[in-house]
């Protein structure tokens, strides 16, 4: 009996000694681990030819196949550094559900929210997080309980903490209604707090960030204890990870056109060696059939959505003469913009409108053909003089039928093409009242014109003279900027307008009159 007890005691001691030895061996042994990264995917699941390139790039099924191969080689963490669910039609038409389904199939270990993850609103974001089979991080976001500040993963006996942070500019880069009730804390303070908390609790600290490369570099310089920063937001193609202070900083371009690979050698619980590269993804070679199936399934749904009827045009909607005169289609689109932005006036360049819509049922694809570009609505305060200057610019090349010719809502103007340039605009009325030169009006336009596209300068001049703005009480306040929603394309605003109207019978009303 006594001997049996001694044997039992001996076995228990042996067991604990074995556990300790395993732990010591695990720490003392050299470990080769890997982090694979994707960022700023923006729903580009289908290979595409980027602007200025004749070659198709990307392709989520091809990227997934490469991830599988890389994972088979060594213990791996697969991380997403934000902006995964919004951007391309493949994601937008399903409010990001397609992206999450594909990411689940690809076995991501974690993702940080990017600013564009908020673009569909908090209820949708919550739904996407619930659908995700992986944790979604956001340590500096207060008010969205579904987000975790960090995770700790064990790879081959090495514990790795991953802290997620998103740009604290998010409230001014998405529509204010999307972030009502949320607080975005200082990234620096947040990372400092969690690196301190996690000290001694993990071997490696990774910051999964959506700050942009400059922000990541600053973070690495200011905070000790970060081993690796896996970043996104600036769409930077970091060919080789950089060592900033004691942190390895990297980012993997955009749209699934590249995969970031970072190999770490860990000894005694510390990183003793790193090597990394970017692998370009092209639609050739091996394809992951599961992910390929998800991509194809949603692409078919995209095609089906394109065929959906959203309203009926009771007359032909003229997208042909938009560079020469007022048209009913120009009126419809600018009316939708003015209503959405809640502005006094809307002005766009005729070149925004690419084609007409025939009388009869209006499909989603018809609207997408009319306004195909990834443009969004911006509204800026302009003085009466700036509005006049804008219109002068708009009619300055009417004889050449250039794309700058304006389509307008909320105002009426007359012009004479025979007058000298910059003196062609005659009468201007806003809301039925004569334009007052030194009065400020809110003017909705698209981001292209707001950035100075087609030679429109007034919007940029106004922004230049504007003081910085801030979000106050859930609404964006600023001296000159009154509306900006980069998460919602103009074509989708027009579709919603058509759906609301059901039947379309916009008329040429004499908003733009040429004196002859």
């Amino acid at each position, binding site marked *: 009996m006594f001997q049996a007890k001694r044997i039992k005691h001996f076995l228990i001691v042996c067991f604990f000694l074995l556990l300790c030895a395993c732990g010591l061996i695990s720490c003392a042994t050299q470990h080769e681990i890997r982090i694979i990264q994707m960022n*700023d995917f*923006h729903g580009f699941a289908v290979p595409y030819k980027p*602007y*200025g390139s004749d070659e198709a790039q990307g392709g989520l099924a091809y990227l997934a196949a490469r991830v599988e191969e890389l994972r088979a080689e060594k213990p791996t963490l697969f991380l997403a550094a934000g902006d995964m669910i919004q*951007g391309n039609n493949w994601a937008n038409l399903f409010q990001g559900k397609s992206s999450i389904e594909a990411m689940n199939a690809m076995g991501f270990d974690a993702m940080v929210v990017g*600013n564009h993850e908020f673009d569909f609103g908090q209820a949708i974001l919550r739904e996407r997080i619930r659908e995700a089979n992986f944790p979604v991080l956001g340590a500096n976001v207060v008010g969205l309980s579904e987000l975790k500040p960090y995770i700790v993963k064990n790879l081959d006996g090495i514990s790795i903490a991953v802290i997620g942070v998103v*740009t604290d*500019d998010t409230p*001014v*880069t998405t529509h204010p209604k999307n972030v009502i009730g949320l607080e975005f804390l200082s990234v620096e303070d947040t990372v400092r707090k969690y690196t301190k908390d996690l000290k001694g609790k993990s071997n490696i600290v990774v910051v999964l960030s959506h700050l*942009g*490369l*400059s*922000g990541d570099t600053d973070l690495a310089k200011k905070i000790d204890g970060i081993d690796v920063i896996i970043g996104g*937001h*600036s*769409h*930077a*193609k*970091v*060919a080789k990870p*950089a060592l900033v202070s004691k942190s390895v900083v990297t*980012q993997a*371009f*955009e*749209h699934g056109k590249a995969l970031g690979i970072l190999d770490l050698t860990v000894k005694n619980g510390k990183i003793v060696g790193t090597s990394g590269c970017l692998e370009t993804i092209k639609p050739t070679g091996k394809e992951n059939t599961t992910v390929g199936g998800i991509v194809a399934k949603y692409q078919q749904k995209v095609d089906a959505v394109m065929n959906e009827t959203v309203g009926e045009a009771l007359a032909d909607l003229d997208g042909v003469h938009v560079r020469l005169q007022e048209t009913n289609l120009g009126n419809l689109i600018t009316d939708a913009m003015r209503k959405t932005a809640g502005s006094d006036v809307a002005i766009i360049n005729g070149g925004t409108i690419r084609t007409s819509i025939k009388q009869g049922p209006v499909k989603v694809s018809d609207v997408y053909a009319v306004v195909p570009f990834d443009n969004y609505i*911006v509204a*800026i305060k302009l003085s009466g003089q700036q509005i006049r200057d804008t219109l002068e610019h708009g009619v300055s090349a009417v004889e050449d039928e250039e794309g700058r010719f304006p389509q307008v809502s909320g105002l009426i103007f007359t012009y004479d093409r025979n007058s000298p340039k910059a003196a062609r605009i005659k009468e201007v009325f806003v809301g039925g009242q004569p334009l007052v030169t030194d009065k400020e009006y809110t003017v909705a336009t698209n*981001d*292209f014109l*707001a*950035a*100075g*596209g087609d030679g429109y300068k007034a919007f*940029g*001049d106004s*922004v*230049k003279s504007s003081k*910085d*703005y801030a979000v106050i009480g859930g609404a964006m306040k600023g001296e000159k*900027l009154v509306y*900006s929603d*980069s998460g919602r394309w103009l074509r989708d605003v027009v579709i919603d307008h058509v759906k609301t109207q059901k039947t379309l019978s916009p008329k040429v009303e004499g908003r733009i009159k040429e004196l002859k």
Partner: protein
Amino acid sequence: MKVYVNDREVSLVTGMTVKHALISAGLIDEIEKGKKVYDEMGNEIGLGGALIEGVKIFVK
């Protein structure tokens, strides 16, 4: 937000991207001709890349 494209200052609404900076600087057509955009560290950046106050980017 002021940013610099090939050392030329342009003013943008906060939240605008590399694409908007190039439109503002009149250089967007250069991309169609095959030129690319780089940050100060020499990394290529995509047209959708976020910008911050005072950042310098280069088209070449």
